[in-house]
């Protein structure tokens, strides 16, 4: 990157390190941190939306809708998280391809599951085999986001459902006494007030979401874990201008520090937000301050 880095074998000490840490591959490593942050920033609102839909469905008057909402929230419990991540990505991929296959190739007469193979017609492949590589990558990323959103949505639904139930009954009765119908009561009284009750659970969920991001690696995304393994492994002078031993330990130490810092910052920010929101509210946080 710098001009002084033209011949790395002549460098030593800090200069060597500076050149080493600015190689093209390291830029890929740094940009994967951005990938993680982007994943966090996209997943959080999407799973909140999933959770809101789930919680609203779980409160519905119409029984099948209620069962759907309750079933969604309870189905994620009791099973290890990473099994879901491994399962959903393949299941979603095959589901999408199956639907496209049904729509695009109605004349196809062979079975889709042939022994150990999953066969759909070429037009139904997702993404198309002729697509550019960035399409493949962003499709994989989108599947990962959707998987995270489904799994975390179930947890958010549980938290929001609790938050909705925690809003004092008298508030809703007052709204009804003012002649609001159930839709107005929901949007004007219940939803604005439920956030305070849901925030402790949601901030807990955010912490968990941060700690779940390394699982991107299992979904085949080139994330920080992938790059740390890739860059840290020992390199001989034949393949790189910067030979070194097995440094994976140091790369993972850097990741550990990154996650600890992220957790710490989130703790501080969420603590302030909680203080702000509970100000003047009749909750334990609001009363004491």
């Amino acid at each position, binding site marked *: 990157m710098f001009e002084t880095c033209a011949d790395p074998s002549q460098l030593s000490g800090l200069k060597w390190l500076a050149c080493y840490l600015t190689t093209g591959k390291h830029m890929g490593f740094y940009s994967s941190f951005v990938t993680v942050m982007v994943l966090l920033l996209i997943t959080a609102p999407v799973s909140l939306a999933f959770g809101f839909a789930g919680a609203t469905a779980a409160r519905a008057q119409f029984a099948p809708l209620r069962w759907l909402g309750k079933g969604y929230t309870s189905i994620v419990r009791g099973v290890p998280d*990473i099994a879901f991540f*491994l*399962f959903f990505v*393949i299941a979603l991929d095959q589901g999408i391809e199956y639907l496209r296959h049904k729509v695009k190739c109605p004349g196809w007469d062979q079975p889709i599951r042939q022994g150990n193979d*999953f066969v759909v017609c070429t037009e139904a492949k997702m993404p198309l085999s002729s697509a550019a590589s960035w399409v493949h990558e962003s499709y994989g990323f989108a599947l990962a986001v959707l998987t995270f959103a489904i799994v975390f949505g179930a947890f958010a639904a549980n938290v929001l459902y609790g938050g909705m139930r925690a809003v004092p009954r008298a508030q809703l009765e007052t709204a009804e006494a003012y002649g609001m119908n159930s839709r107005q009561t929901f949007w004007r009284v219940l939803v604005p007030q439920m956030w305070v009750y849901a925030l402790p659970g949601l901030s807990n969920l955010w912490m968990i979401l941060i*700690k779940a991001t390394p699982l991107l690696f299992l979904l085949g995304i080139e994330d920080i874990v992938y790059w740390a393994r890739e860059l*840290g492994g020992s390199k001989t002078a034949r393949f790189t201008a910067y030979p070194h031993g*097995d440094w994976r330990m140091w790369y993972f130490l850097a990741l550990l520090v990154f*996650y600890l810092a992220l957790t710490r910052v989130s703790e501080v920010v969420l603590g302030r937000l909680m203080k702000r929101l509970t100000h003047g509210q009749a909750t334990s946080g609001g009363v004491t301050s």
Partner: protein
Amino acid sequence: MSCWETIADYGLRSIGQGARLLPKTDFTLCQQFTLIGSGLIWNIYFGVLALISGFFLSTAVALAKMSRVTVLRKTAEWFIFLFRGSPLFIQFFFAYFLFLSLKSAIPFFSPLTSAWLGALVVLFLNTSAYAGEIFYGALCSIPRGDIEAADAYGLTGWNRFRRVVWPTMLRLAWPAYTNEAIFMFHATTLVYFSGFPAWQQKGDALYYASYFADKTFNPFIPYPILAGYFILLTLAVISLFGAIGKRLNRHLPSESRRKTRLRINLIR
């Protein structure tokens, strides 16, 4: 091949007994059930040992965090923050590579690079931090009257701790500790996906489940089997911990007992 033969061949495959080669083609349901179940041995091994050993360290961590000695308190706080603030997945990776470099420096550490010991050490420290925080919370909420009553009876030091503080702490912490135990068993599935190699394809339940899903391109059979096994394991943990919790609360009138609310966390 009948199902009994499959069970004889693969029932203990995960600990190296029975057939050497995993099935390659024509997977039967019986094979999937047997192998995934056999992998569950490792999940139980990791979970049980980490919980039992972690129980003692977590009590120590909680007491250290309560301590008036600044060094002890700060050490406990940092220990808890280190293990609760970072993903277990990264902890596994870091520990594995740390053990690898230790091994190359001193051969004495070589068992640590295999999963049965190395991953167990990580899980032990991790559960100690999580449970330590739970126990610390319980220590903080011991009713002041209990301690004062102990003082009035002239109990001090070790006797006061053993007869009053510790039982009350356990009683208060038990519902949260039950969740931690369930959560721990779920976390054991991460072992073979994070650095630690599965030597001779001896892996845990998720290792075999993903093996089948990779070979058959069909996730709809192995993962639900895995889910079923884990739900059974969770139910077993709940009933065992429920029995212990009942014993801890046996002197209380039934209405003042705390119910265990099942709150399953997603990931650590």
